[in-house]
């Protein structure tokens, strides 16, 4: 686990913000592929594909495996869990705030109704 999960999430999302990288990522959704297979049918050059693969790897969205002399790429779940963790922290913070506010509201209304009773 990285020490900066929030940044990791940004990196993963930014990496998928590019249409070519998203296309590569989707291609890898069907299974592990070599660079040649990934570049096949794409309108960008192979060096460009390699550059995109590098960005996806740095975002931990894909990983590389060496089989013989060939490198294969496949989807790495770590980048995806970063996005989930990000939302998980969002709800933790939101519900923490909510609890405080609900309890303060309850206290205030209880104090008010006591006051009303006393006036009667």
């Amino acid at each position: 686990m990285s020490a900066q999960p929030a940044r990791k999430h940004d990196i993963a999302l930014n990496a998928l913000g590019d249409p070519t990288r998203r296309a590569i990522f989707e291609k890898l959704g069907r299974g592990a592929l070599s660079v040649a297979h990934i570049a096949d049918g794409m309108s960008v050059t192979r060096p460009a594909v390699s550059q995109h693969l590098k960005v996806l790897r740095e975002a931990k969205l894909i990983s590389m495996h060496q089989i013989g002399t060939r490198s294969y790429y496949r989807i790495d779940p770590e980048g995806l869990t970063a996005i989930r963790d990000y939302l998980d922290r969002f709800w933790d913070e939101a519900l923490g705030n909510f609890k405080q506010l609900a309890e303060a509201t309850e206290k205030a209304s209880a104090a008010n109704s006591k006051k009303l009773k006393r006036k009667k």
Partner: protein
Amino acid sequence: MSLTIIEKEVLVKASQETAFKVFTEKMDSWWPKTHHVGKTPMLESILEPKKNGRWYGRHEDGSESNVGYVLEWEPYGRLVLAWQVDGNFHYDPDLITEVEVQFIPEGRGSTRVKLGHKDLQKLMGGSKVIADMDGGWGMIMNLYKNVTDAA
């Protein structure tokens, strides 16, 4: 741990009615200020109190930004919202993930609030990347399982 759902639970020292009202009427007070949809800070977050009611924010520059809408409105016990904001906090009308909130009375004036945010696979990649893939989410789950098994 499931990758596609977030489940949270919080015990609140307040009645079911107070809990429901604070959740739905005072959303802008508990919504983390660091996360807003739209370009400028949010002034208020509004949830129209009815089925299919809009869920949106009003911003400093006068603009409004959609978050989603009400799928189920059952005061004071249950609420289901459609969350249509992607992982970048951008509204996407084609995206629907569900946020279900239950308000369960626990006695002595306490309420257990259970929240479930489902279908998270739709948020990942900012859009429908994974939902559109041939292998779909099951394939990712298998990969994930392989990784955790190996670890």
